[in-house]
């Protein structure tokens, strides 16, 4: 955690309510998000218990598994999840933009125009917390290799037809969630915690109810009490007043309410009393609905809170990355490619890592450019400085054939960048990318004189507006403002001997 975040948390303690950690919203929030509140069956790996889901906040759909140990019931759950979710996911596939780009044929060297499709929008799934993302990933892992009745060799337990397809989508979405800055599958707690500092620790922020209690405490109460009530306030039956946001259920709910209900259901079922079985299943549904509905409302409350923040400037551009990701998966499914393998091969792993690192750098840079609070972190760390231009002096580099503009710009700042004369800086928020070097500094007076090196056009005189003027507020960083390209990697079939050769 940074000192500025710590400071915000301290202020939150004093104020009794969460404090802003961002002045803008750094994640995309769709106009038509799809919320899912999944619950897992305790003790079983990746086994569903229930889920409240949908894009209509007033009318959520409830799916349950009355006996989580029953394989058929689990499949029925997943099939219904597919029925609910796949139409939403697929609904974004039809509306496309056509993009042209020039490509060179590697063999002939001929230049041709390639037209590519990019889906105009992409789905957005919102779950309460990272545990929810993980559970969806587990659903994906356990279903994408399933054989169905339509397969030539369906095996002993064929899954319903669209279950493997659901598995591939869930796998894709949960992978995408690992890409920094992506918004296609958003865990709410970490997204909210990026934008607000509470008066508790980040571990406690992982509890959606407690986090919201700090961000929007009920009238007349302070964050600390509201959060503490959300964490462990219980009613006279010993049940939590604010049920946990999953995927784990409260053990006391399991033992006092759910387990007896499941036992009753099992009894009815083994007595082959169908109406009673149905009634028992409905009892379980009612129980699960009662613990899911409060979380459902919290999720939409969280979405509302995020929507109140103005979107950051780069959010649209990053969302385009999600659209590409969505389009790519749509195409792979359409092309009949096999499901994602269990493990990445060496080249795929390296490519993914490179992508995630590049996106992490990018999101850090863009957040700093979009949000003065994020830039303040860098200023405090001596990696950036901001201030007012107090003097501009034209100057030229006459060493070449034609003189080039190299104006000297003096900035007054209270920041203390870790910068020595000759060091390179980059202008943030200027009209174009612009490099400069520190010509000299007067640390006492807080005066830094910079020589602008680029971003002024090709003529002798700088393009109008490309050089900051006296009195203007400017900001420079010691780090480059764009992510570096990643190095090319071999094709998987050319994996070298150092990495075990091509995958079999």
């Amino acid at each position, binding site marked *: 955690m940074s000192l500025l975040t710590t400071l915000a948390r301290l202020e939150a303690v004093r104020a009794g309510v969460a404090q802003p950690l961002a002045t803008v919203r750094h994640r995309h929030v769709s106009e038509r998000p799809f919320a899912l509140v999944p619950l897992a069956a305790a003790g079983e790996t990746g086994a569903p218990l229930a889920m409240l889901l949908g894009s209509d906040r007033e009318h959520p759909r409830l799916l349950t598994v009355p006996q989580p140990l029953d394989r058929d019931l689990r499949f029925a759950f997943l099939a219904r999840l597919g029925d609910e979710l796949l139409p939403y996911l697929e609904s974004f596939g039809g509306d496309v933009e056509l993009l042209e780009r020039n490509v060179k044929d590697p063999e002939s060297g001929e230049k041709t125009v390639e037209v590519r499709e990019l889906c105009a929008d992409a789905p957005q799934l919102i779950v309460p917390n990272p545990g929810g993302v993980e559970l969806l990933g587990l659903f994906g892992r356990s279903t994408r290799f399933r054989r169905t009745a339509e397969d030539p060799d369906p095996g002993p337990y064929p899954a319903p037809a669209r279950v493997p397809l659901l598995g591939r989508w869930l796998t894709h979405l949960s992978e995408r969630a690992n890409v920094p800055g992506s918004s296609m599958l958003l865990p709410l707690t970490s997204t909210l915690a990026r934008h607000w500092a509470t008066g508790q620790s980040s571990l406690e922020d992982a509890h959606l109810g407690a986090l919201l209690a700090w961000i929007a405490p009920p009238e007349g109460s302070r964050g600390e009490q509201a959060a503490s009530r959300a964490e462990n306030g219980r009613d006279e039956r010993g049940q939590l007043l604010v049920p946990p946001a999953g995927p784990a259920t409260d053990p006391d709910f399991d033992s006092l309410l759910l387990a007896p209900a499941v036992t009753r259901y099992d009894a009815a079922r083994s007595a082959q009393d169908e109406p009673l079985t149905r009634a028992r299943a409905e009892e379980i549904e009612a129980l699960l609905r009662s613990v899911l509905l409060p979380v459902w409302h919290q999720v939409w409350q969280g979405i509302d809170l995020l929507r109140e923040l103005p979107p950051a400037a780069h959010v649209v551009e990053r969302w385009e990355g999600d659209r590409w990701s969505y389009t790519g998966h749509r195409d792979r499914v359409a092309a009949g490619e096999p499901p994602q393998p269990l493990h990445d091969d060496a080249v795929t792993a390296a490519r993914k890592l490179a992508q995630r690192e590049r996106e992490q750098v990018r999101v850090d840079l863009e957040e700093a450019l979009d949000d003065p609070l994020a830039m303040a972190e860098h200023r405090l760390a001596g990696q950036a400085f901001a201030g007012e231009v107090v003097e501009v002096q034209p100057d030229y580099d006459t060493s070449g054939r034609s003189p080039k503009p190299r104006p000297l710009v003096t900035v007054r700042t209270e920041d203390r960048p870790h910068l020595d004369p000759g060091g390179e800086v980059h202008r943030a928020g200027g009209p174009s990318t612009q490099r400069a070097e520190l010509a000299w500094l007067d640390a006492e007076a807080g005066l830094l004189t910079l020589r602008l090196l680029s971003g002024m056009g090709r003529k002798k005189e700088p393009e109008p507006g490309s050089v900051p003027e006296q009195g203007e507020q400017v900001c420079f960083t010691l780090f480059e403002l764009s992510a570096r390209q990643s190095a090319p990697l071999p094709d998987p079939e050319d994996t070298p001997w*150092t990495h075990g050769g091509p995958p079999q």
Partner: protein
Amino acid sequence: MSTHPSPAAAPTPGEQADAAVAAILASALHGGERGTVVDSPPGAGKSTLVVRAARELVATGERLMIVAQTNSQVDDLVDRLAQADAGLAVGRLHGSDALPSEIATRHAGVVASTKAADLRELPVVVATAAKWQWVRDTDPWHHAIVDEAYQMRSDALLAVARLFERALFVGDPGQLDPFSIVGTDDWAGLHHDPSQSAVVTLLAHNPGIVPHRLPVSWRLPASAAPLISDAFYPFTPFRAGTESGDRLLGLGPATPPPPAGLAPGLARAADEVLDVAAESGWGLLELPARLTVRTDPEAVAAVAAVVARLLARGGEARSERGTAPVDAERIAVGTAHRDQAAAVRAALAALGVTGVTVDTANRLQGREYDVTVVLHPLSGRPDATAFHLETGRLCVLASRHRHACVVVTRAGIPELLDAHPATEPVQLGVVSKFPDGWEANHAVLEHLRRHRVPVG
């Protein structure tokens, strides 16, 4: 290869090292495996080995590419190669935004270029892994040497391995591990985890490769090698190349008055810890326990005081290489964080001291000095973090010296370590190659306590 006088006599360090180098060269030239791996503890002659191997590989008439990790490592290597063989044409491949240093280009045989094609026919071409990754459209080199291979990430090796047929990998497993700015759990336990060290991947995929080991540290004095070996290399121990009487650090008398700005009490303690360190190879200058921010002004002042007194008194380092004054160039200050290094530089400048290297552990990797002064990474901290406890960090800081190392710290680190949670996650299938940082920190402090001088 030297012959042993009699089978019964234990081999001398020189004999041990010669035998190891001979086996390494044989394996690199004619071994049945395409890769040869050499683990080299601090100061075990890694650079000498690289230069020697390069010359032997070139002597076979095949062209050689060398991969290093940073531009300064590349320049350094080019310089050494050119010094060892003035007649050798060495290509220095570099990026357009990273011009080679003068120490490399001053040699007549060195040709620098941003294009591999320009250097293609030279017997040796040296570049960083980052630069090699972009080299395309070329037949592979027959031989490669990968220097500082433990600092190279597996994915970087994946990007360059197509450029060579055989390779010699040399590195120190005890330095700081490569890292990633994003989570890499997705690939933990896989043989080809892209975020782990290149050597680990190579060995996992080529089980026939048995790493060689340089068994003797020529840098670390007899006072330091056993401690560093026990604390940081328990699975691959090494010894010092010199005996305890072979290295002497002579200090001038503590008579020159301290400059204005240096408190007399602090100057006295600095003199005392220097005497202890000159005598024993280690010194621990301990300030009273206190929680501080990272750039603890008192600790910074104490570091500066030790350096200033050492320079003021004038030292003389006597060793198997002869006798030389310990001037600013032979002294380094090591810290954990960059802001600490900046604070020490400022404090030194205020005392009128110039020319002393002050840097973080990351940047001191591979460097060697006569005397080092280390600001303990945990000094004054209310808590330890994985960063501060990283085994490699302390190892780098405590193994840069030929004569003596003075550690400056606040008291109370053992207690801080005791309260530190032991909750390190463990990935199945990942073999721990390196000892635990918490334990190593305790071990080093326990040893240093014997050489303690309190301040105030």
